[in-house]
């Protein structure tokens, strides 16, 4: 037992000696939460718009003002011919141009159809799509205002209510995602590198010839990382709560239990990788390409799984983070209990047992060589 404890102390010394890595480990979640909260998911606003008004009447002025004062757009001047548009788009300052046809107001007043064309810089299709959405809404609202002035309209009100996320905070999406990613990073990447490093430098041999059992060696290696991962998870939860008001609606005990399950799963993946990889570089590449990238791209963290082609959906089904994300959101946001997440929990538990078994087996074989 005392040997085992000294192994853990040795591992802690390794971790604390490398202050920069430690700093980065705790810096990544903080920085990511801030960037995702304030940059990546920032509200749609300040989109540059120019106006090409061939009619110059009260209607065009009112519509343009309505659009420009909506808070989403920023006025970048009038232009006077279509030839100017290319230059404006190339400068990147203007993302859309409103083109009112000549006699726009006259057509409207004479019960005819008036044409308004919106030309967008669709090199970023997301912006173009959102511009379409907002401008359609504003023009539609203008029309129904005009209609109401003339009729005793029977109006059906829409009362949207956002369930589970009343204020539509994007933190509800990305905080669980960052958690899944960071825990994978610490548990799998860091562990696999630290084990292969000892192999590469030959110090693993020294530990292997000691009277410690393989299980003890593995446990001694991973215990510090379990603690590190747990601390990091707490940091993310606290940041989510204090910066973005992200609640934990369900049982905290259940949440911690699931965290532990996921950390164990990632650690066994890390050990498995280190038994396969011969050098730190290979361990890094396997961890990055087989674990980190899929975690970021395919787990539903940034991109919704429902949108992906079937093949990628199947691929995402074998990724632990995908199930972990569902569990996190269910417990934290919907306040679900084990009754709703037992399915996903079972999947994670099954994966854990599989990888743990594979890792310990591989590790023992290496000892005998």
């Amino acid at each position, binding site marked *: 037992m005392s040997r085992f404890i000294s192994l853990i102390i040795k591992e802690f010394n390794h971790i604390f000696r490398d202050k920069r890595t430690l700093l980065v480990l705790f810096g990544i979640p903080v920085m990511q939460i801030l960037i995702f909260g304030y940059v990546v998911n920032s509200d749609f606003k300040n989109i540059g718009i120019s106006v090409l008004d061939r009619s110059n009447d009260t209607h065009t002025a009112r519509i343009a003002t309505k659009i420009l004062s909506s808070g989403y757009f920023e006025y970048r001047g009038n232009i006077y011919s279509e030839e100017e548009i290319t230059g404006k788009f190339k400068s990147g300052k203007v993302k859309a141009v409103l083109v009112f046809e000549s006699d726009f107001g006259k057509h409207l007043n004479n019960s005819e159809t008036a044409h*308004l064309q919106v030309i967008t810089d669709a*090199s*970023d299709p997301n912006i173009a799509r959102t511009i379409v959405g907002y401008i359609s809404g504003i023009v539609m609202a203008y029309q129904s205002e005009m209609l109401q002035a003339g009729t005793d309209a029977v109006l059906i009100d829409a009362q949207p209510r956002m369930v589970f996320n009343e204020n539509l905070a994007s933190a509800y999406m990305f905080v669980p995602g960052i958690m899944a990613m960071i825990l994978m990073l610490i548990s799998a990447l860091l562990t696999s590198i630290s084990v292969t490093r000892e192999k590469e430098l030959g110090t693993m041999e020294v530990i292997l010839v000691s009277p410690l059992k393989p299980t003890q060696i593995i446990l001694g290696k991973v215990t510090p990382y379990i603690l590190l991962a747990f601390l990091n998870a707490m940091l993310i939860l606290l940041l989510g709560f204090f910066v973005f008001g992200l609640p934990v609606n369900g049982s905290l005990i259940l949440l911690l239990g699931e965290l532990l399950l996921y950390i164990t799963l990632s650690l066994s993946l890390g050990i498995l990788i280190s038994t396969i990889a011969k050098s730190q570089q290979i361990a890094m590449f396997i961890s990055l390409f087989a674990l980190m990238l899929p975690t970021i791209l395919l787990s539903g963290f940034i991109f919704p799984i429902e949108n992906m082609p079937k093949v990628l959906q199947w691929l995402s089904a074998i990724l632990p983070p995908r199930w972990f994300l569902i569990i996190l959101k269910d417990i934290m946001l919907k306040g679900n209990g084990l009754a709703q997440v037992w399915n996903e929990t079972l999947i994670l538990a099954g994966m854990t047992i599989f990888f743990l078994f594979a890792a310990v087996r591989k590790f023992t074989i290496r000892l005998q060589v």
Partner: protein
Amino acid sequence: MRTIIVLIRKEFTQILRNRIMIPAMIVAPLIQMFILVYAANMNMRDIDFSILDEDGTTTSAKLAARFSSSPFFSNSGSVFSLEEAENLLREDKADIVIHIPPGFESKIDNREKTSVQFLINGINSASAVLTSAYSQNILLDFNRSILAEFSRPVAASGMGSIDLSYSHWYNPELDFKIFMVPGILVILVTLVGWLLMSLNVVREKELGTTEQINVTPIKKYQFIIGKLIPFWILAIIELGIGLMLGKIIFNVPILGSVGLLVGFTAVYLVTVLGFGLFIAAISDTQQQVMFINFFFVLVFILMSGIFTPVESIPGWAVAFNTINPLAYFMRVIRMILLKGAGFADVWKDFASMAVFGVAMITLAVRSYRKRA
């Protein structure tokens, strides 16, 4: 000069000896493009809706039919109580429940105001906003047709209607792939240059072979140039491979001049390679260099506007992006490829990049010590 050539040759021999290197350079971009381009599909999928109809009249059925016939919505059945509705949302079986209150039809017939409640799963706020907007559009349309039924055709109000049309330049189909491929090229070029090089430098340090070079008469600048040039060449080759794949597989437009793009990439690479060298110089182990690089790459990529419009980001982020080389590259590559920008449009970015390049190389040379 001869020393440098020998060093470069040594570096290439080492890189090419690693058998995974060449396949990795071709396979990695292929995989990245496929996964990223297809996974990063932000297009709206079908919205699953469910109806809670407490009215049960022809008018409420008509409204429900409006949703069913919309190409954006797909029906996932009816529910009969609010509890059931919330459960459906909880289990992710519906994105929106449309709650029609009792007395809906009779109120409309009496020309009184009534309301419809939309219960929307708000966890993914971006898609919730769109769901809400689409649903309200349908309701507005329905409203209008009811108005028309009350013998008040739209034209009778003495007002014409506005025909709103859209014309999307540079990407008429709003194809997300065309937007993503240049972004992926930026990541590829950056990873191949910056990451591989700094890992390589620290690996030599860790294994002690840097020591051997340090005792030779090779000068500091020769060593650094010898390290930079091979990865600089590799990264430019990677750009070519990626561009070709993007053209063949996704038919990404190349409107601007390829020469201009390669020129900008060359200048850009000097900056990031210099930065990678600087981090390698201050790191002792591969683990350290990996994590520090990972941190910066992540920050730079997320801030660069690969997924998000940089117009909307807050002021401090705009300020940060003036020193973020990836933000420049991300903007310039999209301008050249998608909008056909020429040198006149991007010369400012060129100039900034050149200044950064000189600064970074200076920093890297100064931080490199010819001692252990």
